């Protein structure tokens, strides 16, 4: 049975595909902002701190995604507070959050039954195990993320790319920066479920980098990155289904191949332009 036939016949695969779609939107919308502002390390820090929330939730018997959400938002707010209020070195704090989050998560998971299975699913993603409730939560987080961005797009862009000017115009840059970090945190939570926290950075950066090869403007970049992420998720899922491979890792490899193909196409186009000139 081909992937498309299976998608038609098995409701669980339709839920998986919907989860993939939610991930593609999260990656496509947030990725270009993160890549353009060179904040991939920060996204990685939030992603790894999420393990602490996942582990504690698992230990307490609470929904893991809720734990992930609380940990991601708390990390985002901590980074925002440190960089805006106490002028702490952001990189140092992110590095600390990264390590401490993982340490807390590993200890908490070690106290709970089924430790190794759960740790691997959080680290490498468990898209094929997605449930209807999880997908609804992912879609809800996406809606919240898109709503926040729609409300604040213009002042947020000014805050991210020229904070001094935005502040001069009376824009509450601290509030908007914190809001942006929360949006990144929401996207990270959505993506952790798909590709696992180890590979979140790949889905945040690769589709955005692919989109950036074709367009220099943010709205176009977001659309193209959504398309690139959707293609990577779809082809990755199909390949993982056909070859019985881990879905998260296959999706990340597809995103990387797409980026390499984009680089090659751009190189060929530039060469052709130079020859014809």
């Amino acid at each position, binding site marked *: 049975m081909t992937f498309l036939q299976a998608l038609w016949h098995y409701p669980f695969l339709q839920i998986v595909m919907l989860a993939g779609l939610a991930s593609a939107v999260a990656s496509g919308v947030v990725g270009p902002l993160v890549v353009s502002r060179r904040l991939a390390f920060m996204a990685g820090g939030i992603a790894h701190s999420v393990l602490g929330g996942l582990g504690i939730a698992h230990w307490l018997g609470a929904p893991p995604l809720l734990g992930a959400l609380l940990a991601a938002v708390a990390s985002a707010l901590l980074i925002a507070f440190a960089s805006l209020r106490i002028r702490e070195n952001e990189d140092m704090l992110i590095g600390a959050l990264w390590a401490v989050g993982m340490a807390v998560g590993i200890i908490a998971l070690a106290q709970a039954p089924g430790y190794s299975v759960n740790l691997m699913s959080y680290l490498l993603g468990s898209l094929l195990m997605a449930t209807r409730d999880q997908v609804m939560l992912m879609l809800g987080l996406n809606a919240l993320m898109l709503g926040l961005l729609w409300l604040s797009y213009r002042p947020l862009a000014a805050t991210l790319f*020229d904070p001094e000017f935005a502040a001069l115009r009376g824009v509450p840059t601290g509030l908007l920066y914190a809001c942006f970090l929360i949006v990144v945190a929401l996207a990270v939570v959505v993506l952790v479920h798909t590709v696992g926290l180890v590979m979140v950075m790949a889905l945040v950066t690769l589709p955005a980098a692919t989109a950036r090869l074709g367009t220099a403007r943010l709205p176009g970049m977001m659309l193209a990155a959504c398309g690139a992420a959707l293609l990577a998720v779809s082809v990755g899922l199909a390949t993982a289904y056909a070859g019985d491979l881990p879905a998260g890792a296959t999706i990340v490899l597809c995103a990387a191949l797409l980026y390499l193909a984009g680089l090659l196409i751009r190189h060929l186009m530039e060469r052709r332009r130079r020859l014809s000139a």
Partner: protein
Amino acid sequence: MALTPPLLRLERVAFGYADGTPILSDVSYCLDAPRLVAISGPNGGGKSTLLRLIAGLLTPSRGNIELLGGTVSQQRHRLGYVAQHPTLQADTPLSVRDIVAQGRLDARWWRRLGRNDHARIDEALAALQITELQGRTPRSLSGGQRQRMLIARALAANPDMLLLDEPCAHLDRAGGDALMATLAALAQRLPILMVTHDLEQAWPHLGELLHVERCLSRRSLTLPDIHPTAHPTAHREAGHR
């Protein structure tokens, strides 16, 4: 009859960094009518610091700044400010029009752009002769075009005063002359304070010239000051006390 407050009044303003390095001291000045004011002086003399104090990006360690009839914090939103080294990244993924539209931002940041905003953006683009560049991104612009874009963004805010730090720094001679002519025309109705090193280029258009110099000698303990310089055409007192 009530007296009109000055556009800008500095009273014994001083500024130094936390490590104790004095930058400006005892600076007094009064601007009472729109004109093009150039601020010159040696590197490190405090020219840019003075503009940043007026823009509210720095706080004086002593003295008082009265701006457009109020305090700096009350009135800074009425300023257009272009920094010498803007924090705007060269590879910002926004179009020139999007960036100029940032001038229409205000404390009601959630507000959508209306017809009036777009008209003001069009006017600012036209005033700086960059209408045809509005769809491009900053990365594809020359240094001079980028400078014009930043001034257009400041103008789009419909400011009551413009503060420009080295506006001609990235321009060739012809570009600088054209920009100075544009600024001189704007200064008929809009006070402009401009830091510049190139007095020769600015001279024909100036309404006033100020000299800001940080005294480098610690022995004398002389602190920096503003020295208004007589201008052959304007003959205007700079209000130095």
